[in-house]
């Protein structure tokens, strides 16, 4: 599916450019896109090094394990394939917490660490496991307590109540997360009915 989407976006774009005479823009966009990707990746180094360093301290101090244990009642149900005391749990929970508070740049390193642990659990295969799909479903629709960026934009444009969308965002994202889990479970059910994993 990724292969198809990836090729389709590029091919449709090129054909469209040929018909619409936007080949110039496409030509420029190819190299701008490549450059942007490298800039983002390199820019992530500072955040990754900092948070992964800090999380290592948290891990060795036993904080991550404690976090995993604390959230066990909920997380256990979401990730039945992950053993309760596995380090993956701690990273999954800290990723969720960072996302809730809108700390995107702290959430990414923890999410990547969680993925790494989930991959180890899956025998280091290069195929997404059931837990990984669930983790991504929750992650992409993550419950948001404080949408800090949006609030600051609203303040900039003179909102009478910049924070009034906290409630709607919380409800919409909470319902969205519940929905995402159901969608994830539906596809898991379909896969297992076909006799897959």
């Amino acid at each position, binding site marked *: *599916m990724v292969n198809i989407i990836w090729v389709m976006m*590029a091919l449709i*774009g*090129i054909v*469209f450019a040929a018909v619409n005479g936007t080949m110039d*823009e*496409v030509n420029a*966009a*190819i190299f701008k*896109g*490549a450059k*942007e*990707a*490298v800039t983002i*990746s390199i820019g*992530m*180094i500072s*955040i*990754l090094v900092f948070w992964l*360093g800090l999380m*290592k*301290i948290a891990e*060795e*101090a036993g*904080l991550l394990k404690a976090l995993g244990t604390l959230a066990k009642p909920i997380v256990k149900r979401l990730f039945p394939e992950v053993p309760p005391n596995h380090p993956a749990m701690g990273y999954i929970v800290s990723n969720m917490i960072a996302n809730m*508070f*809108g700390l995107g740049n*702290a959430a*990414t*390193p923890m999410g*990547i660490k969680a993925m790494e642990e989930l*991959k180890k659990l899956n025998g280091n295969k*290069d*195929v*997404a496991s059931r837990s*990984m799909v669930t983790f*991504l*479903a929750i992650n*992409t*629709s993550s419950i948001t307590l*404080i*949408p800090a*960026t949006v609030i600051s*934009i*609203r303040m900039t444009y003179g*909102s009478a109540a*910049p*924070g*009034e969308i906290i*409630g709607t*965002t919380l*409800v*919409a994202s909470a*319902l*969205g997360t519940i*929905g*995402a889990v159901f*969608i994830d479970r539906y*596809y898991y059910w379909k*896969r297992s009915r076909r006799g897959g994993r």
Partner: protein
Amino acid sequence: MNFVQLVSIWLIPVTIGLILLYGTFKKVPTYEAFVEGGKEGIEIAFSVIPYLVGMLVSISIFRASGALDYFMNFLEPAIHLIGIPAEVVPLAMIRTISGNAALGMTTDLIATYGPDSFIGRLASTIQGSTETTLYVLTVYFGAVGIKKMGDALKVGILADILSFILSFLVVLLVFGR
């Protein structure tokens, strides 16, 4: 409102302080652990590069050619029929693909229609309650070398559509038009 701002400013420094304090209390060699953990970050950042270059180039071609705008114009009337304002449709569509573009659109919508208008509130809620699914997928899977995504993409996109519709309904119920 001031409280919310205060929380978001204090949160990170306080978290860092607590981790350092607890680590010291538990006799963890804090500095050495930090350096050791940090080293992994460099490796991860580099391993993401090919995945991200591939994805962003493809998205850039699609956007720059005008194909994305064309598809949006094509879909707009259908979504407008349900009652969702046409102005936020491009935002909902681009949110899954590009975080920067979405943030730009949200800012533009808030600037144009006002932060306290229906469209302004809706755009704010959509921006806050959804994620750049394709980016998260590329970075998370890319960093650990997952090549076969399985149902992850399908599930993520469906969840995005659901969040978009939910945002509309919640804003409509809470604020009215």
